[in-house]
């Protein structure tokens, strides 16, 4: 018999109307208070410990995952109430497909139901104007789950205030690989000159005709004119994103090959970043992992590279509540203040 069912009396006390009302009031006051300070824009949760929680309390594994989902709903409410813009959660790793088949099946069935629940009465997400985004390897989502995913994304698309990123099936290395590949694709598709509105040769021609009207000091323009005509419009307006250095000869002089590529030297961190799944999200401020495991486990590796405060908490994910989040937020605010103090005298 699980101790979760044995704690009836305690449950009765906490669920009684006056106590519940008081607790709700206390939570609201606390959140309202914390909102006075700086608030992180992007928080990531690695929801770990559902199964260990279930094992400790002698309930079914899938029951643990259900409780984990309830914790997620709680956390989302807290975060959005505080004013966090983006919440990213690690729902399912690509490695999780290695789990016992029964559990994977159960998780997928649960994903369907929960996605439906999240969206259908839409309360939570619509109240805070949050839209769902599903990050990860889309081709690995089982065919029967895919329509549920698409519908959830579609039905919350109109919300613009906040974002819930669900990483499902995701690993960070796969994300980085796909970002690198997308960058390579961007830089190896020969940039098509999509008929620029202004023609450089037309401009030079016009100027030349102006000069010829005046018929003096022609030479200076003539000198460059054959060069300009052979180069045509393609060269200078070759790629809109990466302005080519006009002095770089190797690419421009390739007359044998008609295909011209943007210069690979123009790839920067931002280019790759713009191809990650979290491209549009603000930088990650807080990374929280529960259940006392001190690894990143292939989650948000690229994102928590710098200036991300990583917290490893003792509690299991189904237990996670405001009382665990508040110390994290307070400490973040405190460090934030310290960092600002450190920076300000230098200015």
């Amino acid at each position, binding site marked *: 018999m699980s101790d979760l069912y044995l704690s009836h009396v305690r449950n009765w006390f906490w669920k009684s109307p006056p106590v519940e009302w008081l607790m709700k009031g206390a939570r609201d006051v606390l959140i309202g208070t914390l909102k006075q300070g700086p608030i992180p824009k992007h928080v990531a949760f690695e929801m770990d410990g559902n199964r260990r929680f279930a094992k400790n309390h002698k309930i079914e594994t899938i029951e643990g995952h259900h409780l984990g989902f309830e914790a997620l709903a709680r956390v989302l409410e807290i975060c959005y109430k505080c004013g966090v813009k983006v919440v990213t959660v690690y729902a399912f790793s690509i*490695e999780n497909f*290695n789990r016992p088949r029964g559990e994977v099946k159960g998780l997928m069935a649960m994903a369907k139901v929960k996605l439906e629940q999240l969206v259908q009465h839409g309360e939570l997400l619509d109240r805070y104007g949050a839209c769902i985004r599903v990050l990860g390897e889309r081709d690995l989502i089982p065919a029967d789950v895919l329509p549920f995913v698409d519908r959830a994304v579609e039905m919350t698309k109109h919300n613009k205030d906040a974002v819930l990123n669900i990483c499902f099936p995701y690993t960070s290395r796969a994300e980085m690989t796909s970002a690198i590949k997308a960058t390579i694709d961007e830089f190896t598709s020969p940039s098509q000159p999509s008929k620029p509105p202004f023609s450089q040769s037309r401009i030079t021609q016009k100027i030349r005709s102006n000069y010829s009207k005046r018929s003096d000091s022609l030479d200076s323009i003539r000198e460059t004119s054959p060069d300009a005509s052979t180069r045509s419009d393609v060269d200078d307006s070759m790629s809109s994103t990466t302005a080519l250095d006009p002095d770089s000869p190797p690419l421009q002089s390739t007359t044998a090959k008609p295909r011209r590529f943007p210069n690979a030297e123009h790839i920067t961190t931002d280019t790759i970043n713009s191809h990650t799944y979290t491209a549009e999200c603000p930088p990650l401020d807080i990374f929280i992992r529960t259940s006392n495991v001190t690894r990143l486990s292939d989650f948000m*590796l690229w994102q928590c590279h710098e200036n991300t405060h990583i917290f490893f908490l003792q509690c299991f994910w189904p237990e996670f509540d405001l009382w665990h989040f508040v110390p994290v937020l307070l400490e973040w605010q405190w460090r934030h203040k310290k960092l600002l103090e450190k920076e300000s005298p230098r200015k």
Partner: protein
Amino acid sequence: MTYQNYLPAPSTRHRSNSRVKKQDSYRFGIRRFLKAQFYALLYLFIHAIFSLYIRIRIAYHAVSNRLVAILKHHYNSPEYIARDVAALKRLPEHLSIILTLENGGKGDALEKLVNEVSEVAAWCTAAGIPKLSAPAVALFARGAPAVRSHSRQGLDLILISEDDGREAMVDLTRVLTEMVQKEKITAEDITMDVIDNELSEAVMSEPDLLISFEPYVDLQGYPPWAIRLTEIHCAPDNQGVGYQLFLQALRKYAQATFKLGK
């Protein structure tokens, strides 16, 4: 599609907002004003208390760390370290550390960093850890004889520079892009293990244990590809490099269980 932006959003929030507004309008916003004042006051109060708490915590950790450091001192003798480590079930093959460069590298901060790295390298040699990766903040620019000398004792020392983080991945992408442009390879050939192989050869392989000698975990541009399954150890409020933290991390690593996705 675009004209939709100009239409009022037909959401449920609208309705709930209007109710709140009505309530506020005939109270002249006094209630809201008082509420804001109350929250601001409470915020100051909570942060004052938290600040006190964190100061006490820092002091407590500083004292207890000192005590442990005295009790567990290695007396600069490899035998003591070897004895401490002997009880552990397993050791990391590859240890990595994060250190702070104080004052932005001014004064003798750089020298201090070099000393700290060489100290940890000495501990690793004594403990029998074959591989150590440490931050190299412009170490090579000034030359670091102290660090290089350790490598002859069989310790494989990797120096991670600031360019080994995201920058290294950018460089790899540039190389791959050029190769695809020159049609040496196709874009389909690029898979995760190609990237993995290249990054672990050129930058560093995945460390087993990362010890952060910082007061809190901040990766400071640590190579993102390598840190996937690394056990991260960081004592809260820790100040400076201490042997007790090194030992603590090794103990914790010995107990940790690994289960990739299972």
